[in-house]
């Protein structure tokens, strides 16, 4: 048999990789991390059973997983909009914090708002705060062609230091026994909960945002233009699409969604702004968006998966494993995913 008769070609315009590639990437990532677990002398099977059990087996685990899935969903949706037009926003973490700060500012500086108005004002403040933080990334990109990746990441650090400043400084609860956090929110400043659980109204906000995004991306002229830009920015520009306007608006929206997540976290979960309010939701959201291939409904599924990973990561700490096991898993998933994405582009050609 002549080996040269078969040729593997890479077709850059090739179709998306099949769905099982994503599944395989997740499985392979778990396999790789199992090796690390085994090296540290633990039984990977037991660890994964414990992780899955902690995240999905009990009703407490499930609500905790969903609580973690809310910010991942909103931030993931936000960054996915930017990735659609090839704007590499990795600043969801900073935009999340900016939203949390802005929403908390309402409780600090406008305590006298009527009860029914408080939550809507906080919600808008959170979205505007996150949106502006996103816009800070987009403005240099649009006017000076500055790499948005670096800007958005630098702004993460700035937002984090800003958070530390207020919770250790001016906003610290004088009755909080030196705990770095603001005074607890009142009932009027807290999102309603589902029954006796910790699950809050942010879940509805997240799902509404997902449906809206899906409709707008699939069914409107705006969504069509986003897809054109995503396919080929240069061609879209020549076709008369306002590239700069789209970038600015998408980053405003992208940051706004992350800001909404920040608002929901302080108002729905923590009921105050505090040190370390985000355990890296904004970074995990990048993988959430990517593993869902930027599909809004896929983001719901991957947000629940990664929410479960975070909760599971906590539950294996009792076994003497660091919770960084979940970030290790996340990085591995992404590696296998991009390696696998090539499979959709390979063609076998018979000469």
């Amino acid at each position: 048999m002549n080996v040269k008769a078969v040729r593997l070609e890479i077709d850059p315009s090739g179709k998306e990789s099949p769905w099982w590639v994503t599944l395989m990437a997740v499985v392979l990532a778990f396999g790789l991390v199992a090796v690390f677990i085994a090296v540290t002398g633990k039984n990977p099977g037991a660890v994964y059973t414990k992780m899955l059990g902690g995240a999905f087996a009990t009703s407490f685990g499930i609500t905790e997983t969903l609580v973690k899935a809310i910010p991942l969903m909103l931030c993931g949706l936000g960054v996915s909009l930017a990735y659609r037009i090839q704007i590499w926003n990795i600043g969801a973490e900073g935009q999340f914090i900016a939203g949390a700060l802005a929403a908390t500012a309402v409780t600090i500086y406008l305590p006298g708002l009527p009860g029914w108005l408080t939550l809507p004002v906080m919600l808008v403040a959170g979205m505007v705060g996150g949106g502006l933080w996103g816009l800070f990334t987009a403005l240099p990109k649009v006017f000076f062609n500055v790499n948005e990746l670096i800007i958005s990441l630098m702004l993460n650090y700035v937002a984090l230091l800003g958070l530390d400043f207020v919770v250790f400084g001016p906003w610290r609860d004088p009755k909080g026994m030196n705990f770095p956090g603001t005074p607890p929110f009142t009932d009027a400043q807290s999102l309603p909960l589902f029954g006796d659980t910790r699950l809050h109204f942010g879940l509805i906000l997240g799902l509404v945002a997902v449906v809206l995004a899906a409709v707008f991306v699939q069914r409107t002229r705006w969504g069509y233009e986003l897809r054109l830009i995503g396919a080929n920015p240069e061609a879209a520009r020549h076709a008369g699409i306002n590239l700069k306007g789209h970038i600015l608006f998408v980053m405003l929206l992208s940051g706004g969604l992350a800001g909404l997540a920040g608002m929901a976290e302080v108002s729905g979960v923590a009921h105050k702004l505090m040190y370390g309010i985000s355990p890296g939701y904004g970074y995990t959201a990048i993988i959430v968006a990517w593993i869902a291939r930027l599909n809004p409904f896929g983001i719901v599924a991957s947000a629940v998966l990664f929410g479960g990973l975070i909760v599971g990561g906590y539950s294996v700490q009792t076994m003497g494993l660091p919770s960084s096991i979940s970030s290790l898993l996340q990085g591995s998933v992404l590696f296998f995913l991009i390696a696998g994405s090539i499979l959709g582009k390979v063609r076998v050609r018979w000469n």
Partner: protein
Amino acid sequence: MELIEQLLTAAMAAGTPLLFATLGGILIERSGIIQLGAEGLMLMGAVTAAMTFLATGNFVVTLVLVLVVTGLLGLLHAFLTVTLRANQIVSGLAMTLFGAGLSAWLGKSITGMPLGGAVPKVDLAWLDAAPILGPVLAHLDVFTWCSLALVVLLHLYLNHTSWGLHLRAVGDNPATADVMGIRVQGFRYGCVILGSMLMGLGGANLLMVFSPTWIEGMTAGRGWIAVALVIFARWNPLYALGAAYFFGLLDTLGFRLQLAGSAVPSYFLKMIPYLLTIAVLIFVGWRTKHKLSGSPQALGVPYIREQRF
């Protein structure tokens, strides 16, 4: 006079890890590949150095292991981006997340353990007599001298050797380079691996000289700052020296103001390097708006032989 000496010394100490990572970035990007994994590689370099040195106490073994580990990670990036032509940006992000997670995992047991006197110094006492620069240069450690040598070597390599010319061709126009018989993939593999090793050395340097205890996430964005410095330095190793020390100086100044009991809360002083990075990038963007930025022409574009463009 003494103040200038102190500031220069501190700027070099803070700037050298950045310089290593920036030089690595320049080497990689000159071949046409983007490596955004600098942060993850620096963390892996740092944690490898900490673990090895605590276990063996041997400086050379430590360096070798750092180079091996980060070289393997570089090989992974090269395989994904050069051979599989995967998205370079996502591969770099994955490397940063993976490196952050793995280093936190590995370093859990050695967090906070001090590494005393790990790095050999090069004492040139006779330089002490020279004005200003003399005392600064007389007591540098091995890392700093290595980084200075690398600046010169990389400059000579890129601009005064035929191999360097080939490398620039690969980064600017891989199709033409390929026609000329230059091994595009080979150059890219080599540069990504060597450059990733330099980023790892930057991390090892940060840990062993600048802040000699391992703490999770200790690079605090320095890898990303190095990515920005590559642009600021216009992909030129000589400019990278100035850029890295400039950032080192500002890092130091913030710290000094803090010690001096500045009225500005320390949180804002700590923001300086990040805000400055943004300012520098905007400045570069504004200056090169209608000119060439010095960026390799084929940066970030996978090369596929016989593909029509």
